[in-house]
């Protein structure tokens, strides 16, 4: 197996990411995102599994009304497909592809899996309240100097730092 290549310099990565975000805002008038694509997928799923529920429950109904061409025809869905391809290409050229599970030295794989599921659930839930996640609300919000975006960012990192001590066994 070929050697795994080192990660990019973080400041260079940040600079390039900033340019991509700037290009996104300049071209499309909106920022980057991630959780919004999951929302599209969830609405699409509910629409296909339980159409009557999707037609009555406001969360799905409102979304479908805004997306007349179909729940999946959303800017972020296309963007996230791009993210998947881009990350895959990056993993491929840096020899980082492969099914792996990372966890802290004082925890087990089972705990890591359970916590990853729980963490994802909370992130998915929180991103709805926050109208975006770290990408869509915090990063993109910061770029356009949105008060709400920056508040969301401070709340994410503030709350994470506040509870980090109690969950230190997961990571260190």
């Amino acid at each position, binding site marked *: 197996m070929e050697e795994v290549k080192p990660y990019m310099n973080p400041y260079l990565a940040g600079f390039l990411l900033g340019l991509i975000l700037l290009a996104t805002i300049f071209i499309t008038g909106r920022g980057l995102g991630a959780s919004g694509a999951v929302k599209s997928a969830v609405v699409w799923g509910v629409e296909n599994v339980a159409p009557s529920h999707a037609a009555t*429950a406001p969360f799905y109904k409102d979304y479908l009304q805004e997306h007349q061409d179909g729940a999946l025809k959303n*800017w972020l869905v296309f963007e996230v497909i791009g993210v998947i391809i881009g990350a895959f290409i990056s993993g491929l050229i840096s020899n980082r592809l492969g099914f792996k599970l990372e966890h802290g030295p004082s925890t087990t794989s089972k705990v890591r899996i359970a916590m990853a599921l729980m963490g994802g659930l909370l992130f998915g839930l929180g991103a709805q309240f926050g*109208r975006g996640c770290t990408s869509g609300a915090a990063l993109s919000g910061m770029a356009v*100097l949105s008060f*709400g975006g920056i508040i969301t960012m401070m709340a994410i990192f503030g709350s994470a730092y506040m509870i980090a001590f109690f969950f230190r066994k997961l990571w260190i």
Partner: protein
Amino acid sequence: MGPLVPEIFNQEFNYVIALLLGLFFGFILEQAGFSSSRKLAGLFYGYDFVVLRVFFTAGVTAMIGVLLLGNLGYLDLDLIFINPTFLWSAIVGGAIMGVGFILGGYCPGTGIAAASIGKIDAIVFFVGIVLGVFLFGEIYPSIDWLYTGYNWGDLRIFDAMGISPGLFVFGMILMAFGAFIFTTIIENKVNKTNIGKPAFSLSRPEFKFVYFAAIYVVFGFILLAMPSHKDKLWSKLNDQTIVSEYKINNISATELAYRLLDEDVSIQLVDLQQNKYFAKNHLPGAANLEFEKLFTKEGSDLINKSKKTIVFYDYNGELAEKAAILAMMNGNKKVLALNGGLKNFNQEITQISTKPETDPLNTLAESKFKQNISERLAMLSKKLENKAKPASSGAKRSKGGC
């Protein structure tokens, strides 16, 4: 002038752009090491601050770019999506996400990037996000009060703080700069690297970023001193040496009245009053474009694209001349300004004088004439009523968010 969607690129092509931008986004996330939950979680335990470095550098880079392009007039900041502020929903959501970050080790964007290269915890994390969004969808009606309450609108942080955008960005640059130095020192301590060496030294590779950051500070100073696009136009408008280069073509109330009654289709009246005053009183067939709107992409496009001769008017005639100069600066030569404004037009053309005149016969003739004109203008108004809507190019703020 940006944003390029929807005018230069259509919505369908926008999806192709989304895919391409996403591709770069995912590539950088993975290259930065965001596909590793242990690296990400390092931020909260002090052993790896890569998230802070990438995130802050990206955020500051983009905000410098946005403000710079806006000030230079290349990007209309009134048309880009500003994440709206629903105060408590943002705080509660952020707090929940923070817990999710500690437990899960990823955020959605990084999780998707990590899942793409086969990280099993990231794939599970992704399933979790799906469940979380679904959970929200199911409980949504009951928490609507929080979700849609405390709506502060498209509030910008610098407005909330009462400072200029340039000052805010400058502060963020300094904050990021300080945070990078501080966290690098912490990282060395926690990881027990470079023991016995000075905490901070420009000769060590982990502090080399300072040279790079210095460029950002320069940009910060530039933004601090730079007027906004609107302020720049406004000061140009008030600069006599610049203004005197333009010859304002005026139209008198009498001539305009004749052209209106002739139903001259080569002119388009543009009323610069605020919506509420426009609604109370305006000339027949006028489109309403508030003076402030002339400084935006929407307003300047409307004026520039008009094939007719624009006749600007406001209540007392001051703004119309400024609007005419502004339009000429933007390259539209076919503009006129109504002399004396709507006030004078009404006095000269439609209002019947009540002051005693020396010549009663003349007064009678004048009042009859004015009454006739008033009636004809009122009829014309009625006829053109459906055209007298507030002007709009259809340019709307971009939609965004998650």
